[in-house]
């Protein structure tokens, strides 16, 4: 983690902002992936089609 953080470009404040943006983007992506898996495997809503 420290090495990944250190590899981010720019000075320390820029690195922190970049890290926060990357974490938020990853969480949003994860949310959509979870949602897709849930809707297709766990509970599709019970529709007949």
């Amino acid at each position: 983690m420290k090495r990944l953080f250190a590899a981010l470009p720019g000075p320390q404040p820029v690195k922190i902002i970049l890290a926060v943006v990357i974490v938020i983007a990853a969480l949003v992506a994860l949310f959509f992936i979870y949602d897709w898996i849930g809707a297709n495997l766990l509970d599709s809503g019970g529709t007949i089609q």
Partner: protein
Amino acid sequence: MMEEHIPAAATTPVARTGSGLLVRVIRGIGWASLIAGLLILGFVAQQLFVTSWFADRNQTQLEQQAVTYFEEAQAGVEVVPYVPALSSPTTSGGDEPAPPVTSGPPATILVEPAPPVHQAFAIIRIPAILKLEDGWTVVEGVNRSDLKNGAGHMAHTPLPGQPGNAVISGHRTTYGAPFHDLDTLAHGDVIEVETAIGVSTYAVRETIIVKPHELWVTEPRDGAWLTLTTCHPKFSSRQRLIVFAELVDGPNAPAILGSA
């Protein structure tokens, strides 16, 4: 004698390299297991708690929307002759079917305008199910976003309280899981659906398990029916649990039951 003085430095790097690789592999497996565990934990938490939190929050807003819609739609409610056919007047489209030939005055039913897609237009209550005791809002449409908010009414089927077969789908384990305990319903259990025409009461007649593509369960029926559909078994969308309920009371019941 020379062979006895082999420097230690000549052998240890090989040993260190071997054990170092093993340590790295074990450490890698450990991290991968930890990350996989966190991802699975996150998935379970998102599906069970986050989705339900969103659904519960949306339900509060949708219930208000439904009540407002009742008032608006009541102005558009019409009294029409009841036609004991397999299709509802609200979904019949172009040609109006001819009213039945009867000796007395024709029976009439209340018909409300078809709600716009995504609109919260009804509230379903099932006293036998704790979750649905106070009601769950039904929206028009059964696409993924509709069902995230509430139970969804299949748009091409009649509205609840109307002749035919009104079909409502809902989540079993996520997004508030309104139909989680649908399998506990027994013959005769009451289902109430409030719409712009009033409260229509149904009694459970049959519960079955079908495949997700068995469209026959949504087909029109004689009289007035409510069909609830949800995933089966719990935590799987492999099959569908279907509950058929028949109209027994409500604004249109006298006309429909008298002729059915």
